[in-house]
């Protein structure tokens, strides 16, 4: 199966390693991976800030870039959901574009969801050893139903001991632009998430959305915790 990888702007800028890990996993699942070179950002920040015009512009760009592919995969629940659920809303006034958005949306997947439910990945290449705890990012969890998929993949690594934290499904306080508009509230929410995660004694906090992970890692480091790792699930599954 030919799969197009939507890298996401945060991965592009901050953690390219996650993009390469995603490629490795998709290839391990027998897919041929393409990375359309002109891709940039899905437009979610603009949409969530109320700028419909900017969001529509980027939505059209993504549709044109990706609609030729059989499946489109993103290592982020919130970006995948933005394309899948929001593009048709953003383009509601332009029926032709909306139809293209709907058609594309049905083929857009979050990485772990795709690996488990579509590509049916058997063997994961990673080799993590130790206790980890998993943070369920809000949009992936509540919009796309990502809950069992990452856990099923982690269970394939014999060295991983998954210890669930209290409030694993609670928001970490990131919220995209919320984190810079209301820094203090955002950081206070993150503090609670970090406390819950650390109470499990895990060596690594793992999640599927880089935004949340940057938030959690930033708070941990500010709290003086230099040792707890904060990793994207693709990194754990590939030992990147």
């Amino acid at each position: 199966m030919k799969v197009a990888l939507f890298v996401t702007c945060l991965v592009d800028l901050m953690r390219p390693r996650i993009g390469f890990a995603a490629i490795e996993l998709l290839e391990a699942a027998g897919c041929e991976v393409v990375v359309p070179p002109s891709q940039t950002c899905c437009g979610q920040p603009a949409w969530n800030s109320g700028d419909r015009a900017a969001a529509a512009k980027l939505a059209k760009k993504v549709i044109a870039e990706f609609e030729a592919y059989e499946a489109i995969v993103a290592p982020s629940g919130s970006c995948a959901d933005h394309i899948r659920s929001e593009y048709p809303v953003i383009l509601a006034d332009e029926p032709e574009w909306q139809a293209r958005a709907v058609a594309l949306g049905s083929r857009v997947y979050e990485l772990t969801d795709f690996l488990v439910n579509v590509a049916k990945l058997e063997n994961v290449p990673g080799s993590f050893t130790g206790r980890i705890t998993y943070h369920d990012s809000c949009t992936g969890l509540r919009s796309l139903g990502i809950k069992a998929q990452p856990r099923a993949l982690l269970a394939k690594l014999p060295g991983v001991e998954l210890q669930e934290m209290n409030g694993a499904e609670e928001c970490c306080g990131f919220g995209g632009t919320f984190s810079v508009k209301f820094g203090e509230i955002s950081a206070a929410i993150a503090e609670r998430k970090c406390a819950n995660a650390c109470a499990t004694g895990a060596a690594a906090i793992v999640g599927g959305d880089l935004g949340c992970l940057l938030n959690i890692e930033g708070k941990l480091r500010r709290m003086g915790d230099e040792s707890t790792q904060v990793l994207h699930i693709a990194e754990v599954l590939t030992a990147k």
Partner: protein
Amino acid sequence: MESRAHRFKQNAVDSLANPVLQASMKKAKGKFVDKRAIAIKEIDDFEATREAAKRIRNQVIENLDLWLEKFEQTATARGAKVLWAKDGAEICRLVVEIGKQHGVKKAVKSKSMLSEEAGLNLALAAAGIQPVETDLGEYILQINDNEPPSHIIAPVVHKSLDEVADLFHKTHHTPRKTDIPQLTREAREVLREHFLTAEMGISGGNFLIAETGSVALVTNEGNGRMVTTLPRVHVVVTGIEKVIPTLEDLATLMRLLPRSATGQSISNYVSVLTGTKAEGESDGPEHLYFILVDNGRAEVVGSEFQDMLRCIRCGACMNHCPVYQTIGGQAYGWVYPGPMGSVLTPLYTGLENALDLPHAATLCNQCGVVCPVKIPLPELLRKLREKQVERHLRPWFERLAFRLWAWVASRPALYGLGTRFAVRYLEWLADGKGSISRLGLAPEWTQGRNFPAPEGKTFRELYAQRGRNG
């Protein structure tokens, strides 16, 4: 009530710095959230019940005028007078008029959010009518210099027992006590006197039932019954959206309301009050008035925010909101806090008076998941943001930032160059450490946490290199 929503950010910072409030909020969170989770399991088909409740509420709101007419007819037939108020000032005027007409010196009140919207207590006092709040929480706030509530069903959730003990000691001139049953008894003794001497009772209403012309009151303290049955005059002040068709609909909604609110299967008291005292009956008011209030609601009917009118004021959205849990309700600056307040306050008091509220959410959708009438709160918040942008109400640099980002992101070559520079800059800031402790471009981020350093090159750079190498 005068809105302080424009000061949201400062209010929030104050809340974060208030240790008593922080401790109280932590305690409350577990209680509300855990109890609801257990209580909804008692209903076999919770999702279907939510769907039914949504239908009932939509049915009314889509034809609000017809249902209100019907309610007016049935209520009038049972001896009540139905009055209409456009805004808070009109509520105050009508209640004061009714009070004067019946020679009222004192009015006992059961919790009514509408009277908070109107600032009714001040108006009553100014007209020489003493208002006495009888809901324990509201009473505590009233004797604390009319402090505003922080939650729609638990108005003093932000307060500690110690604070209440001090307040009672100071106000009642009694020995200080910290035992909750003793404090409750003390309040009850003070209030009993008021119940017996007040000529007028003022209550809100959880639902108005069109079929019977009744008002349904859902409370956990007995005060609601006293307020509505002891005084000669009873005034119900509710929003026009509170009407529902039948008693059977009430039964459906009552399966959801207490469970969503406090995690109870049913609240301690549910009263369905119909008409004035008939001849030969022993209790009930001689005069019953309904003041049905618009105060911004009519304009929401038929708008893209209409879903919000389904709200049954259970408070579940705030109890589950990470932002509310962190800063409490008073920070939101008006009558309604949390996600529902962040939608209602701008709608009812004006978009320009609550610029921060629609943004004061992470859009995690925990609120939407728990709302018993399925209000898509995150979607409504986002729509409000869009309205603000349309009306040029956001700061210019914010609007420019998103425009600029979209402009750059539509030009892959420029984007590639820009991100390459951005990453180098961040790396330089990190100075070999794993994270950045002060970010000049987004100072808010680093107020309470670091910003992790990037890896050094962007994905597109590395991918292009990989292409060349392999």
